């Protein structure tokens, strides 16, 4: 068994630490048509508490099904990682999810209260000798379906961004 993509232990408090490193902080005023900032409990299945709204809003903003699918998958993977590997299901810890949606642009920022991890140390799950390992694909899927994904220095916060019409649009 290889380690899941975002193996993180627990510690720290939920604060703006994860957002300090972004070139364009989520707090910047933009053309967003919808936004939400939600603290999720560290429980299995909690991602629905924000993703149902996010998916609905993407549809309302005219996003096509295949693009919504990609955002859904990436956000689900990020939130599940934060709950399971970041906060390790610790009921005293929260996962902060910040969403911004416009007709051509979506941002989802997921921050847990773990100490973080180093995404560059996650092994390549597409290597021949790793193809049949059951874990380790979440990070790859996030990268594939989004225009941009960035972790903060600490590794406890990930920013997912998708821009329609971007050169590397999936």
């Amino acid at each position, binding site marked *: 068994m290889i380690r899941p993509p975002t193996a993180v232990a627990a510690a720290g408090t939920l604060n703006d630490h994860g957002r300090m490193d972004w070139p364009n902080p989520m707090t910047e005023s933009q053309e967003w048509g919808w936004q939400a900032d939600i603290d999720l409990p560290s429980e299995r299945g909690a991602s629905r508490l924000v993703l149902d709204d996010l998916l609905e809003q993407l549809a309302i903003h005219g996003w096509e099904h*295949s693009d919504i*699918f990609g955002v*859904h998958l990436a956000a*689900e993977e990020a939130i*599940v990682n934060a709950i399971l590997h970041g906060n390790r299901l610790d009921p005293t810890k929260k996962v902060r999810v910040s969403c911004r949606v416009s007709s051509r642009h979506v941002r989802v920022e997921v921050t847990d209260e773990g100490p973080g991890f180093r995404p560059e140390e996650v092994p390549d799950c597409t290597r021949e000798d790793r*193809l049949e390992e059951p874990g380790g694909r979440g990070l790859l*899927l996030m990268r*594939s379906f989004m225009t941009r994904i960035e972790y903060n220095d600490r590794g406890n916060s990930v920013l997912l961004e998708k821009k329609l019409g971007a050169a590397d649009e999936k």
Partner: protein
Amino acid sequence: MTAIDARDPENTVPMATHRRIDVSKTGDVTVVRFNDKKILDESNIQELGTELFGLVEQDNRKAILLNFTGVEFLSSAALGKLITLDRKVKSNKGRLKMSNIRPEILEVFQITKLNKVFDIRDEEADAVAAF
């Protein structure tokens, strides 16, 4: 009596109660369909894994087809279960095939290169004929 008799797989009217999957037979092939449109809830995925693995480990089914009709979404945790199932089937000297996968999910298999690991066919009839 709901005793499971793994020595007699031909006699299997679904023995174990399945909640996440629907199991039927076409000739010698066990055809599995999924009850969830979105395979992402962690606890459901655990249950899904248990039910899928039971087809191999308890029922000793050798030819298994996963028909993904109706499945709109699956997460990497679900992929993990499919990989483990594939391993279990292979080590039991059985064969696993998949069919009716919608384009978005097929893309997930391609990105993760699992299309090289799994035997994927377009339609159920193609897959059944290929066993």
